[in-house]
Structure formats: C-alpha cells, structure tokens
C-alpha cells in the first residue's frame, strides 16, 4: 500500500495532497499544472517535498519531520515518463535490462498463473516487444518506445509503478495500441500503478481508483465509476467528455443486424457488434451528452436502448445546460439536458423516468476493458 501526504510549494500555488492507494490502477487526474507530476516526482524521490510523508508497504520513504529521505535509486518506484526517456546509447534489450542489474533477486510474479519461461520473456511477451530487442530507441515508433519504457520500469521489480501521462505524446491510434497492455499490467501484475492523466477517456478506461486534483488539492478520491458519476465534480472532470461508467457483460450477439447485447444491472444495452465472447466483462462509458430523458416508455423511437430509472440529483446552475444523475437499478447514469427541458418536463429527484441512449453513441470512447484481440473491431465501431 502506498500512502502519500505532502505539501510542496510550486510557484503560484501550493501542492497539498493526501491519498492512499491499495493497489490496482490509481489515476491522478487533473488539468495541466494541477501538480500531478510534482506529486509523482515526490513519490519517486526525484523531488523533496517541503513537508510531508510518503510510505510504501509501511516503509517510510520521505518524512520531513523525521528528516528521512530515501534517495530515488533505493525506493524501487518504477517510473514511466511521458517522453519514455530510453537510453539512446543502448539498444532495446539493454534498456530493458538496465534496471535488472540493480533489482533485488526475488522475481515479480503475476497474480494468476506461475511464470512459464523467465520474467524477462514474460514481460517482453506481455508488452509485445520481442521483435524490437535488437533495435535502438531512435528506430522505434512513439508507441513502441512507451512499451519498452514500461517494460524497463517493470523489470526493475518496482514496488509501485508510476506512469506520468505515458500516452500524452502519442496520437489516438497509438494510444489505442497501448491501452490493452496497460490493462493487462493492471490485471495480471501485482504492482500497484499510479497513473497521471488529464484525459477522461484514458482514466475511464484504465483507472480502478480516481484521485481528482485541482490546483494542488485533492478534490475527490474514490472508485472511478463513483467519482465520474458525481455531478459536483463535473467542472473538474470536464463537462463535454463527462459520463457515467457501467460494468457490463456480453450476453449475446445478433448476427443478422450486427449487434451485441451487453447486460448491466441497469438493463440491457444493444451496441454495434463487438468481437468478444459471451460472458466477457466490459466497462462502458456513457457520455452525459448521449443520454436523453423520456417521461414515458418511448414508442416509435429509433434508439434501441431504454433504461428505466429514477432522477437522483439535478445539479443547480444558471447556465442553459443542466447535469442530472439517474439511479438505474443502483447504477448511476449521467444526463446532460437543457434547463428548459428540465423545467418543462418537471424533472425533480424521485421522479421515475426512462433514459434513452442511441446505439451508435457507443463508439470506441465508450468501451474500456476490451481484450487486446478485440481492439481492431473497436476501431470499426468508431467508424460505423
């Protein structure tokens, strides 16, 4: 477990953050300049915070009160930098091997099955970089560089893996190439990940826990779906991209119409065909702007997805757009409507309504947790 509580002066404002991470992928989310990078640099020991305490699994790494500061090289905090920072004078194999020299000898084991082959082969296979080993960093694409950087950090056997906007320097298609690898890392390796990002789609797809930072302060912390569903955080989580996350399973395919049915607690969703087996788990992000509200079960409507629910919360504001949270069988759904609609329809908490979502709203932004094999069809979904 990682626990952080630091205060650090940063030019115009003061970083004053406190959070804990139990494991999985904890995303530090916030706008540029919110102090995210300084926070992870403090965890890695690259900067000394003015005040505070950082500990991993009970071992204190930084404690300004006790004048304790473990230098970066003895922390075993793996760091994947935004720009990769591969050593230009070493080839990929040597880059990957760099940290192993200094790493403790007990190997890092994945959660489930015992390692077949060596740890090196396992990590190289996990990241799909076996064909790159003899190359120099200059001959790698941006996505390949980041995968090598992740492998290099992992092979140093870190206790915590820190990733500072590892996808920020990549274009969209490269980003989608890396997502599955980070997901496998999160699900198959025992290493807790601290993931810095200012992108909602990234966080929605990858994070198990979300820490929202605003001007150096922790504005909210909690499970990703819960935080994404909070109306009061919308100014921070980004209005246009904001949306709720539903946990679903594939329950069937309709070959004739090319549709896949996903079962969530809130009800069934029919989405464009996904190349996933029945039973596969899938996170779906439903953006608030794609949700319409009907007072009665709609008739003669082209949209395929209608989820019954109750209005749980209506965010107050003077602007023309209003956010509201629906409770659909215990799961939150966020809708974005005009204030005019809210008033003319008389939408108030407790009212029973129907949420309507067009199937084509489920583009590649909507899906998270898609297994690596299904990513190509993911792109087709986006096009269709």
């Amino acid at each position: 477990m990682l626990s952080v509580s630091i205060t650090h002066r940063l030019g115009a404002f003061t970083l004053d953050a406190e959070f804990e991470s139990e494991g999985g992928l904890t995303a530090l989310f916030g706008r540029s300049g919110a102090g995210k990078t300084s926070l992870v640099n403090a965890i890695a020991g690259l900067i000394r915070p003015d005040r505070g305490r950082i500990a991993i699994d009970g071992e204190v790494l930084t404690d300004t009160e006790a004048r304790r500061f473990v230098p970066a090289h003895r922390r075993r905090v793996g760091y994947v930098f935004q720009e990769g920072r591969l050593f230009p004078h070493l080839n990929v194999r040597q880059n990957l091997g760099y940290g192993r020299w200094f790493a403790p000898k007990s190997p890092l084991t994945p959660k489930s099955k015992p390692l077949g082959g060596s740890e090196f082969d396992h990590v190289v296979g996990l990241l799909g970089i076996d064909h790159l080993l003899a190359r120099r960093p200059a001959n790698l694409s941006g996505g390949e560089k980041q995968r090598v950087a992740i492998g290099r950090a992992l092979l140093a056997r870190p206790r915590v893996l820190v990733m500072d906007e590892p996808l920020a320097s990549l274009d969209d298609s490269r980003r989608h190439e890396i997502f599955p690898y980070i997901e496998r890392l999160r699900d198959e390796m025992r290493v807790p990940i601290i993931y810095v990002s200012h992108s909602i789609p990234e966080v929605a797809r990858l994070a198990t826990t979300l820490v929202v930072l605003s001007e150096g302060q922790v504005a909210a912390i909690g499970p990703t779906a819960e935080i994404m569903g909070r109306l009061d955080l919308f100014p921070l989580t980004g209005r246009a991209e904001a949306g709720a996350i539903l946990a679903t399973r594939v329950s069937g395919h309709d070959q004739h119409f090319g549709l896949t049915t996903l079962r969530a607690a809130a009800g069934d969703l029919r989405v464009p065909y996904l190349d996933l087996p029945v039973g596969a788990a899938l996170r779906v992000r439903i953006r608030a702007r794609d949700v319409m509200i009907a007072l009665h079960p709609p008739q003669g409507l082209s949209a395929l997805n209608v989820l019954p629910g109750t209005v749980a919360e209506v965010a107050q504001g003077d602007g023309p757009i209003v956010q509201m949270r629906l409770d659909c069988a215990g799961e939150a759904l966020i809708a974005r409507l005009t204030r005019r609609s809210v008033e003319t329809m008389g939408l108030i908490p407790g009212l029973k309504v129907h949420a309507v979502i067009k199937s084509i709203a489920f583009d590649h932004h909507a899906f998270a947790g898609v297994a690596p094999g299904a990513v190509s069809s993911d792109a087709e979904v986006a096009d269709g």
Partner: protein
Amino acid sequence: MNFTFSPEELTAIELSLRVGFWAMVTSLPVALAVAMLLSRVEFWGRSVLDAVVYLPLVMPPVVTGYILLILFGRRGALGEPLADYLGIVFAFRWTGAALASAVMGFPLMVRSMRLSIDAVDRRLEDAAATLGANRVWVWLTVTLPLILPGIAAGMILSFARALGEFGATITFVSNIPGETETLPIAIYTFLQVPGGELGALRLTLVSVAISVAALFASEAIARRATRRAAGL
C-alpha cells in the same frame, strides 16, 4: 632530396609524441573533473575557476611558460617541494615539456568535454536513478557513454595542441636536444643553422602528417557521435 631522418630528427619526433601522449593522458582526469564541476556544480568561485581554466588560451604562451618557471622551477614555489619530497622534477626535463603542453591544451580539453556534458539530457539520469542506479552507476552507465565523443575530441585537441606547443615550452624548459627539443623547437633550431632547411622541411612534413591524422580522427569521432546521438 633525402628523406632519411637523421638521429636528431628521430629523437625530436619520438620526444614530441611522448610529450603529447603524456600531456594528453595526465590532463584527462583533471580536465574531466573540472568540466563536470563547471557544468554541474553551483559553488562559490565558479566563475573564477572558469576564468583560470581558460587563461592559457588567451595569455601569450611565453607568459604561461614564465609562470610555470616561477611555480615549477628548481627553486619554484611548487617545484622545490615536489623535487625534495616526491623526486618529481620538471625544470629542463621532458616532463616539464609535457607539463607545459598539458597546461596549454587544458582549456581546449575542458571546453570540449564541458560542451558534451552540458548536452546530456539530465532527465535520462533521473530515469536511471528510478531504475535503481546510484550516482556513481548513473555516471558510469549513462553520463560517461553519452559524453565519450566529447572526451575523445578533447583528447585529440589536447594532443594536437601539445605537438604544436612552442612558446611556453621553450620559456619553461629551454631547448635541450633529446630532452625538451620537440618538433616545433627542432624545426626552429634547424632554421637557425646554415644547411638546416632540409631537416626543417622533413620535420614539417611529419608535423603536417600527424596533424592531418589527428584531424581525421576527430572528424570520424564527431561523425560517430552524431550518429550515436541519433541512436543509430
């Protein structure tokens, strides 16, 4: 024209190479340390050290030679204790010629190394630290390999400077055949005696050949460094 070297000429060539080699090798660790210090460490008096290092580049060589004579002569402030306690004598020895050459080449060596140290992306050093390397390992495995071309270029510059050194050497250790009479001094001496032109010409050609070789070597290293920096 006769291209057979006389024993005196061969001695001068051998002596010059020896002086150049030792000037280069002995100033290497000092120059590297000073370059690291100037490039990386903020300390009081840094600008003074900076100026002192570059002084031999701008002062008349004869002045540098005279200062060396005052400091390292038999009765010099440093020369006397060095001779008495360590048995190291510079005055009128080939070692003195090497010292003069080392001092004259020092600014060039430091400058070349410092430029390459300044060019190192320090974020790579941070990355190495997060991978478990302590400062010594970071320096040996990341910094040093990245500045190697600068070090090599600095060594070649220093060696070339040593082969051409005249003023400081002749002022400090005089002109003693077989001991301090390096190539340029030998050429000068040949020109002072009637019938010495041929010997001067032969040594001049040797000088040109060595300089051209050094230039090619430094070009090759620079080219390799550029390719390496591009990661090819």
